């Protein structure tokens, strides 16, 4: 394997990983505040992409307003999902809430299929499609947008959670909802904000990746799965580790293809990546258990 090839594997892996990271961020946001695994996260991403196509391509809106509106609509869908599907469930068990998110995901996916049909579509690239040379490898300009967006969103989210009142309230709610409500933080408002934020992050991910990955009514399933893995690495609690998890997943998948080791051809890349990550988790769980015991 030449250096240029190795760099290319990394570049491709980081691009894919950024996609997973963005989705994983959304999972983490909702889980951290509400303890719900939101199986509809992938659908928010799908909506961002589909809407940006309709607005930018079919309706002919200029790019920036199309993207912004798409993200806002995705965020509104997240809010609607919380208000109409999650909040009415009151004190349902975690498992029941998970089924509700599954139901909501199927509902959104189905509605997208009815409205947009089944074909894949490609929204316009932000800055064209001439690939850029980088250390002997090539990177698509849209991939730079994806990586850049992931970095920016992660930083903004981190600052938001650490330094703003709302952000701190969200974190407090995540750490201890009962205590937070005692100091006047309304867990239902926090949950709504978490859903809106997660949907917005998903929508942002969707609009920035759709030109490169193509989008259709059912991309949410696979994307949600990858984002779930990314978030799981972060324990569903830490946004930063979720981003790291996503990047790791992308890079390991890419290197698994490069290795082409024996019978484990590129067909096995998803399995290899999952196994590697599970091994990491197993090792971590050993250390985590130690940390808990030594306090």
């Amino acid at each position, binding site marked *: 394997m030449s250096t240029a090839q190795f760099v290319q594997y990394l570049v491709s892996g980081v691009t894919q990983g950024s996609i997973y990271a963005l989705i994983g961020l959304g999972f983490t946001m909702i*889980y951290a505040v509400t303890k719900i*695994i939101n*199986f509809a996260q992938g659908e928010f991403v799908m909506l961002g992409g589909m809407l940006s196509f309709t607005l930018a391509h079919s309706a002919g809106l200029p790019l920036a307003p199309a993207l912004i509106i798409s993200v806002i609509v995705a965020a509104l869908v997240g809010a609607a999902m919380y208000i109409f*599907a999650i909040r*009415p*469930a009151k004190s*349902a*068990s975690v*498992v*029941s*809430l*998970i*089924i*509700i998110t*599954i*139901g*909501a*995901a*199927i*509902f*959104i*996916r*189905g*509605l997208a*299929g*009815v409205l947009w049909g089944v074909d894949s579509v490609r929204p316009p690239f932000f800055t064209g499609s001439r690939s850029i040379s980088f250390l002997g490898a090539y990177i698509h300009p849209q991939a730079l947008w994806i990586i850049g967006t992931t970095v920016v969103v992660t930083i903004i989210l981190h600052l938001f959670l650490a330094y703003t009142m709302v952000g701190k309230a969200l974190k407090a709610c995540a750490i201890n909802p009962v205590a937070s409500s005692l100091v006047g933080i309304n867990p239902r408002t926090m949950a709504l904000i978490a859903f809106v934020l997660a949907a917005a992050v998903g929508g942002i991910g969707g609009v920035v990746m759709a030109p490169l990955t193509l989008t259709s009514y059912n991309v949410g*399933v696979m994307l949600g*799965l990858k984002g*779930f*893995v990314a978030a*799981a690495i972060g*324990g*569903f609690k830490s946004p930063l580790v979720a981003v790291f998890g996503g990047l790791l997943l992308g890079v390991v998948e890419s290197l698994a293809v490069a290795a082409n080791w024996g019978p484990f051809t590129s*067909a*096995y890349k*998803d*399995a290899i990546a*999952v*196994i590697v*990550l*599970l091994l990491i*988790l*197993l090792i971590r*769980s*050993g250390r985590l258990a130690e940390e808990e015991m030594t306090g």
Partner: protein
Amino acid sequence: MLSRLKSKWSYVVIAALLTLSILLPFDWFLSQYTTLAIFIGIYTIVTVGLCLLMGYTGQVSLGQAAFFGIGAYISAILSKTYGVNPWLAMLIAAIMTGAFAYIIGYPIFRLKGNYLAMATLGLGLIMWILFRELSHFTGGPDGMSGIPYLSIGGFVFNTSFRRYFLVWFFCLAVLLISQNIVRSRVGRALRAIHGSEAASESIGINVEQFKVKILVLSAVYASIAGSLFVHHLRFVSPGTFDFLASVKLVVMAVIGGLASVWGAIFGAGATRILSDEILLRFGQWDIVIYGLILVLVMIFMPEGLFVRLKEIFERLRLMYRQRGVEP
């Protein structure tokens, strides 16, 4: 948690249901649903195992389709490619699946909470990829066809009619065995674990061992269901055991209700009837309605169908009793 059936009304309802089920394939009208009933029976068997696993270990299993698929493929490969007697193949499949669950059980249960969920997801994903890629044995993405029927002596289960009774025999057996487990010492231990693992450990219950045992049991159930599946359809392909399949199984378990093994019939039944009969009529809107129904059912019946139906049944009985008639 399941109260004894004290009133005679319950026996009446059960007798009626039993009669209906036995006569179903004979009836001119209902017999067209025999195949549907077979699938409900098969999926109930998987769901019972999943209910026990999720209900008592409190863990979501996102990869249960893996065990279903292992049982299916082992049965298919042994009976079709190697000419092994289908019953023996089913037994071997169940043993192998159970052993597999035992081996991965201990490492998997070292992970907690959502890490465990991801491990189950990973398991499902890896098995699906193996079913697809080990094409020399499994037939690859095209699958395998020509799987033989089950038979006893000269009596071959080659009609839906016969397989209906076969599948429901297994299904009832599984349900009764599980009900027994739930009421036994094992069941009480499991409920203790579900309540508090730390407390259970402190009174001498080996939590890990119990969890692994339940995993093995659920795997064996799923394997049996898988075997029945391939001897009914005579065809198997990897698409039946993907991530979405595992999700559907979880939906069946929760919709039916995790509190009781009988909920599995309702969960599997309601889901299959919806997707195989009712939603067909709605064209492109079928999954929109399905999603809506899921959300509504979980909002209004968070404990599952079985518990809610029992509540309604009890309320009717009380209303009836208040009118001065002794039930």
